[in-house]
């Protein structure tokens, strides 16, 4: 009898799975969401989101040109970070800054060389457009670099050995070239998977309600758990498919190293994918119509995952309350796992603690979904 029950259940489940599979194959939109969207988004994010400044347009305002100012200009010219342009007066340079033609000004007053040679204070004045503060910080860092190397070179040309009291030696682990793409791409994968997971399922249950097929399903011996499983499994496979595509692109196209174990990656991705799919399913079950489900999925997935997952903005620097909110964003845990797995390796404390958090979410969501989906029209 028990065996009979199991085989009956399996038959129903297989029936649902086969049905979903046919629908997925015949409706290009889920295939598009699963396989085209990650590629498009990954390329867009991969190229569109970059914090690596290059060719920063900087204006060098030289009020009186001579060999000294020339050597400084040359230093900027040689740096890969700058694309200098020259002005003869600070007014011209400032106007260019206002018109957003340049991002910063290096201002050498007319008495610069004179003071320098006389051993007097000869400051270099820097004006930076601080609107994009992050970019301004980066620009400033680069300017300091150019300035320091020029200073050493200038001193040694005068026969003075310049001694900086404290020398900083920078060693960046996991991403020695400070290539922002290496950390952005894993984060982007987490954001994309959040969107795909919830989009895939947000519409599917709502669609059954709207098309009236739900009523027919309800009157069959199919239990609600079987129906949910029938919905989750195919979309889980699709979601994992898009995960593999994304990882493959990350490694082979964007050159992000995969230092951790591939299988650990598969495991944590599965966990996260289940959480995303359940969120979509929950939206779908609660809203029952595609209009509200679609709106909620947009509002609840993209921007929160983009801004609150720690993928771009450091969570430690957020106010405490907001940090509390980030604990509710599943992408937060996945971002940490992916960045670690890609760049650092199998760092178990990071992976396990985040996996645990995702497990808790999974259990809560599964309970929520099953309690919300009773076999009734009310």
């Amino acid at each position, binding site marked *: 009898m028990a065996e009979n029950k199991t085989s009956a259940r399996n038959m129903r489940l297989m029936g649902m799975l086969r049905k979903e599979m046919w629908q997925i194959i015949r409706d290009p939109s889920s295939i598009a969401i699963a396989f085209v969207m990650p590629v498009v988004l990954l390329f*867009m994010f991969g*190229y*569109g*989101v970059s*914090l690596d*400044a290059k*060719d920063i347009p900087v204006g060098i305002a030289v009020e009186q040109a001579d060999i000294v100012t020339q050597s400084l200009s040359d230093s900027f010219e040689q740096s890969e970070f700058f694309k200098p342009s020259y002005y003869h007066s600070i007014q011209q340079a400032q106007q260019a800054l*206002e018109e957003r033609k340049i991002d910063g000004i290096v201002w050498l007053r007319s008495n610069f060389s004179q003071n*320098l040679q006389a051993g*007097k*204070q*000869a*400051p270099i*004045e*820097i*004006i930076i*457009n*601080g*609107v994009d*503060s992050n970019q301004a*910080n*980066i620009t*400033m*860092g680069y300017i300091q670099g150019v300035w320091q190397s020029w200073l050493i070179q200038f*001193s040694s040309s005068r026969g*003075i050995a310049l*001694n*900086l*009291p*404290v*020398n900083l*030696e920078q*060693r*960046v*682990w*996991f*991403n*020695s070239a*400070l290539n*922002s793409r*290496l950390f952005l791409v894993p984060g982007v994968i987490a954001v994309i998977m959040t*969107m795909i997971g919830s*989009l895939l399922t947000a519409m599917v249950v709502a669609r059954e309600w709207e098309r009236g097929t739900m009523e027919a399903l309800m009157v069959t011996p199919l239990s609600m758990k079987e129906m949910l499983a029938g919905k989750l499994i195919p979309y889980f496979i699709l979601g994992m498919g898009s995960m593999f595509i994304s990882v493959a692109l990350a490694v082979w196209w964007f050159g992000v190293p995969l230092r951790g174990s591939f299988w650990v990656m598969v495991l944590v991705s599965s966990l996260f994918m289940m959480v995303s799919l359940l969120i979509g399913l929950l939206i779908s079950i609660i809203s029952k119509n*595609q*209009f*509200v489900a*679609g*709106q909620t999925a947009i509002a609840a997935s*993209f*921007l929160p995952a983009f801004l*609150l997952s720690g993928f*771009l903005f*450091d969570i*430690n*620097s957020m*106010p405490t*309350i907001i940090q509390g909110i980030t604990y509710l964003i599943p992408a937060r845990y996945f971002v940490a796992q992916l960045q670690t797995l890609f760049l*650092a390796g199998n*760092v178990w404390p*990071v992976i396990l603690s985040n996996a645990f958090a995702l497990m808790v979410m999974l259990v809560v969501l599964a309970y929520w979904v099953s309690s919300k989906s009773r076999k009734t029209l009310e």
Partner: protein
Amino acid sequence: MNNQYFSQIFALALKEFLALFRDKRSRLILVFPPLLQILIFGFAATYDLDNVPIAIYNQDQGLVSREFISQFEGSETFEVIEYIKKDRDIAPLIDNKDVLLVLNIEPQFSDKLQQGKSAKVQVILDGRNSNTAMTAMNYIASMNLDFNQKWSAQHGATGPKVALEVRNWYNENLQSRWFILPGILGSLILVVILLVTALSVAREREAGTFDQLLVTPMNPTQILIGKAIPGIVIGLLESTLILIIIVKLFQIPIQGDIAALYLGLFLFLIAATGIGLVISAISLTQQQAVLGAFLFIVPAVVLSGFTTPIANMPDSVQLLTYINPLRYFLIILRGVFLEGNGFTLLFSQFWPMAIIGVVCLVFAGWLFRHRMY
């Protein structure tokens, strides 16, 4: 005749408002998420570092290293959570993300400095988020610069007296919130407008009421204007609300011409509404409309310069940003908020949005009658 023309448009716009706001769920979705999000994201989205956990590995016994370290202990940017004693303690701290960086001070640090030689401090950073790492490194570098200048002054330095004197225009304290909040405003409004407009025609198509609309004496232009008004009005009201929050709560002053800002906002809303209506008119079902809206919103936000500068993108991607109305609107927002710009400096941002808006609206109007199933 003319009166009738406008009263028909008015009736349609009124109907759109009623359809949006009589339903409780749709009313909630339009009003609360944007306000909640500006609060959460406004506080969350910052590149500024605050209380970043670090560890210090001081191998030196002398006094100077203490002085050096004290800078970090007093800093609000960093929080020293651990003083380590052994080399092999470094790796787990960084691996496990307990600290962002470790300062490693060499054994003879104090001695070397006192002898007038250069001393070395190694900064080991977690590069998993290289931007955070780099920002932290910049903070440390400038703290070190201060330390060096002070030390040199106290101990009679040699060499050229060339210092950098830095001024940051428009955002003197380099608060990244000043930069990001206007971007959040733009993104949120874009999402709201697309939600309002992208589903508006698709929904009527599914319900069958769109046919009825087309059979009335109203012409496509009237229908278009009537359908566009709710998006624009809701956008204006919600933007105003968010602007008030930004100015009052986040205390970011508006330096420039508020009229220029509103002209920009208006043109942006027209462009976004136009795009939303095109998506809606193309879509046969609501599902397609939702997907369409999504496929526009994500690239529009990413490629707008909202979080990362457009200048850093590859040239081909930069070209794409020219058809993104959010790009122009963000420049206007930041221009007026931070740079104190007025109409003249922003003129080059106004007309592209106007063109996008007009082209999209005309196309949407054409689609009303020609997209049939």
